[in-house]
């Protein structure tokens, strides 16, 4: 039982580390390039901005959910939970 718990914890730490690398890259690449465009939309085209905001947050949610599920499976030998 103890061995199983420590293996789960180890897998979780690895997941967090891999995920942190993904997220750091994401901050610097995607958000850096999007900021100017989004600010322009926010100031001059609010309706488009509102639509883009929803598409972005849902799109990111779907992508990140897929990444985390894939990481869970990869590091736990096919089990997702």
């Amino acid at each position: 039982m103890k061995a199983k718990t420590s293996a789960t914890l180890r897998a979780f730490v690895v997941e967090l580390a891999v995920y942190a690398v993904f997220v750091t890259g994401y901050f610097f690449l995607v958000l850096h390039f999007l900021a100017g465009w989004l600010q322009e939309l926010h100031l001059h085209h609010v309706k488009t901005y509102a639509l883009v905001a929803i598409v972005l947050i849902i799109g990111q949610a779907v992508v990140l959910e897929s990444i985390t599920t894939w990481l869970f499976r990869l590091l736990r030998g096919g089990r997702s939970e």
Partner: protein
Amino acid sequence: MFFPISNSHISPVYLAAIGFLIGVLGGFFGVGGSFIAGPALRAVGLDWNFAVGTDLAHIVGKSVVAAKRHRALGNVDLRLGFIMAIGTMGGAEVGAQLIQMLKRAGNVNLVVSVVSIAIYVSISSFMIWEAWRTLQFQKKRRPRSKVPGTAAKQDESSFSHRTAAIQRFHLWPMISLPTSGVKAISLWVIILVSFIGGLFSGFLGGGAGYIRMPMLVYVLGIPTHLAVGTDLFEIIISASYGTFSHAIKGNVDILIALVMHTGAAIGAQIGAISTQYFAGPKIRLAFVPLPLIGAAIVIYTLMTGHKL
């Protein structure tokens, strides 16, 4: 990190950490977590209007992740979620109109504060009584399961006789919810429950999961695990509507929401997966502090005049 839309400097690590915490709570309890996100964003200097709108946008993303995970675990009743979304949006509009009326009358802060404290404390008191009673019944009736997790999805409530009476209330059209194990229930009861949730969401702010999740369990008779998953699914629709409305008014910094969501995405998965290891009454008992935290924040605001 500089966020040009709201003209603010906030650490991305702080945002991701807050997102993670709210993600775990949201995935486990099916709540939006505005009572933490709002004060946490205000604490780093974000204007109140941006804190409210940005939090809603972040809730959409977090709920997508958690609802997807709950759906994979069989915890989402899509039919119920779609019906509830209609009532929630209607209720949210009426709640927002009520706030406008109170603003014109000049006593919005006191009325909203008193109502919210009464609601939060009532929900917590009722849930602690019901969950404790149900756990005592279970303890007396059968020996503890020796295999961990086997009893996790079995759900019982000492309030179930009242729930059955509500389900017997025949007002056309009656619909069935096979995913939730409800044979027949009036559509109007579902609309009323979601309308009340939406009303509180529009009146008090946030997603109002602290009132909708208990009502799903106690009024509609939805098993706790399904109530959590379905509430999250319904939040996607109603929070998207709220985000759009706030974004048009210039209250959403989507860049902040995207950064918060990177933490929430992993937290929501952990929270959702964790529900498998707890039985319904234990989830409900663990839910009790959430409305009390909300009440404490309102009391603090009322006494000091500082809006958290």
